[in-house]
């Protein structure tokens, strides 16, 4: 059984434009994703595709002007707001992207210790710092004194000491040097090998491919494809969705061909398939209805033409 299931999740924001006229921004549209214990699922997509909001929706920390529909299940039972509140930080932990997510006026050791939910906090914090090669004087530092690598290890420590089953890492590697990125990726792999379920939200496909088991490709607020990591090879012929193929071919080490057009704005989504305006295989059917997510060759795809 999957530890975390997201079914048909939609998130929209209300915005008042002129006077009392409302405008809806559909930031996430009927999104499906599942997470298994001991597995890393990488969620990849361009910036602005709603990846971070997915993390916030799972944790129940969306801003108050967001409205959400669909279901999220944790260990088989629906995650209600009350349950999210009880579980977050305890069974589901977030690894945020930068040092800005630490309280600037609190020593980092103390911030890691707050994440410890049971047992001796000081001992747990010292152990995790030792494990991540953070020297003992780091616990008395303030966030502004940390280097990029130290900040990343501190943020990871907060998730580690919480002993959560599900770890959601939201862009944990931007702006770091390659050595630190590699180290971070190994840390996540290790977490997964110890039985955690890890959701790695990133726009860096290359890094994701090194450690992930499955890749979910995100486009305009929905998952267009979920594929085993082995399908990403060659010209992308094993991939299912036209967008995944195009994304793969756009990488510098592959064909380096850009995709024409750009992502639709959340306030002006096409009525049919979200990728339809940019798709080469588009037919009349694509424009009429949004395709459902369906199983295909050990993966999932949201395209009626995929084979």
């Amino acid at each position, binding site marked *: 059984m999957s530890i975390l299931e997201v079914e048909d999740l939609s998130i929209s924001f209300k915005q008042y434009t002129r006077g009392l006229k409302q405008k809806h921004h559909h930031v996430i549209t009927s999104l499906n994703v599942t997470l298994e214990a001991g597995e890393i699922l990488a969620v990849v997509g361009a910036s602005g595709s709603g990846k971070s909001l997915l993390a916030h929706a799972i944790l129940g920390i969306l801003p108050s002007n967001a409205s959400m529909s669909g279901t999220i299940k944790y260990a088989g039972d629906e995650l209600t707001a009350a349950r999210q509140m009880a579980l977050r930080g305890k069974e589901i932990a977030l690894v945020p992207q930068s040092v800005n997510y630490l*309280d600037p006026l609190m020593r980092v050791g103390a911030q890691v210790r707050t994440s410890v939910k049971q047992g001796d906090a000081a001992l747990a914090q010292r152990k995790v710092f030792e494990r991540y090669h953070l020297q003992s004087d780091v616990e008395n530092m303030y966030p502004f004194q940390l280097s990029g690598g130290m900040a990343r290890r501190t943020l990871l420590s907060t998730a580690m000491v919480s002993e959560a089953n599900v770890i959601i890492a939201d862009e944990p590697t931007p702006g770091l040097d390659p050595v630190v990125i590699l180290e971070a990726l190994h840390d996540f792999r290790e977490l997964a090998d110890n039985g955690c379920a890890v959701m790695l939200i990133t726009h860096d496909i290359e890094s994701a491919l090194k450690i992930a088991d499955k890749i979910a490709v995100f486009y305009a607020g929905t998952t267009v494809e979920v594929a085993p990591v082995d399908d990403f090879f060659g010209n992308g012929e094993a991939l299912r969705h036209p967008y995944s193929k195009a994304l793969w071919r756009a990488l510098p080490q592959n064909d380096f061909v850009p995709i024409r057009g750009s992502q639709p704005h959340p306030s002006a989504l096409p009525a049919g398939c979200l990728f339809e305006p940019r798709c080469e295989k588009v037919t009349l059917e694509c424009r009429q209805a949004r395709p459902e997510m369906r199983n295909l060759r050990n993966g999932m795809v949201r395209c009626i033409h995929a084979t």
Partner: protein
Amino acid sequence: MRKGLNRHIGIFLLLKSVRMATLLVAICFISFLLIKNSPIDPIQAYIGADLLKVGPEQREKIAEYWGLDQPVMVQFFNWGSALLTGDLGTSMIYRRPVAEIISERFLNSFVLMITAWLLSGIIGFAMGVISAMKKDTWVDKFIKWYCYTLASTPTFWLGLLMLIVFAVWLGWFPIGLGVPAGVLAEDVTIADRINHLILPAITLSVVGVANVALHTRQKLIDVLASDYVLFARARGEYGFGLFWRHGLRNVALPAITLQFAAFSELFGGAVLAEQVFSYPGLGQATVEAGLRGDVPLLLGLVICSALFVFIGNLIADLIYYVLDPRIREGRMI
């Protein structure tokens, strides 16, 4: 680490005292010139109603006695060199040394201002916090409305209102003055003094809360929308505990600084409030010295208030130095 910090504070204080010295010299010079060029004739102010009995020869004698016949710059240097030896001169209306009057008045004003300052700081901060935590509810709207109304209320008007309601109609507090009238100085108790202090102090603090409250509200709203509060919520923190751990410290620092920097407004408010309540403080003395042309007293008060405001700002700067780790420890790396 300690040593480095102390040295930094030492240099900081040295620079600040140089700045203060130059500021005081400039203030003395400008206010001296202003008073010299004002329509106030010190001799006329000194003699007052007896002007008709004083002939031109006597006037000249008085001018000569005070050195008023000398050029302006010489007068300034005479006054300035006396000031450097600690002699502020003699007040014309009170016929006593200026230093003595100021120190006596300062004590009265200080008690009043400190009370009002503490009350407005604490109440304003609490109001701002409640307002931000309950953003967009009726509590928030009420506090905002109250603050905007007060921010546009003149202190003297509120003082008069307070007097009418609490002293005249309800009779809970005495009308004005610092001590009861008709009681010997040695018979005045501390309770009497406190009783006379309450109304002016409340007037001053009621007006003073608006600034701190609105500032704290906005600051806390920013903090609550910050990434680190989002992350704290993601780790299961919520409600008052979340505010206590992550909000308070991040909001209190700017609020304390603002409150110290508001010393000048406090002084300005005190002048008006003391006048309305006939409270014998610095403010009232300033108004009298200005209206009756008491030049030595007025100049003494100008220096005193400049010092007061400067020290308030200095403390505000120092607090950041000592309390904010980003400044405190950032300098050492």
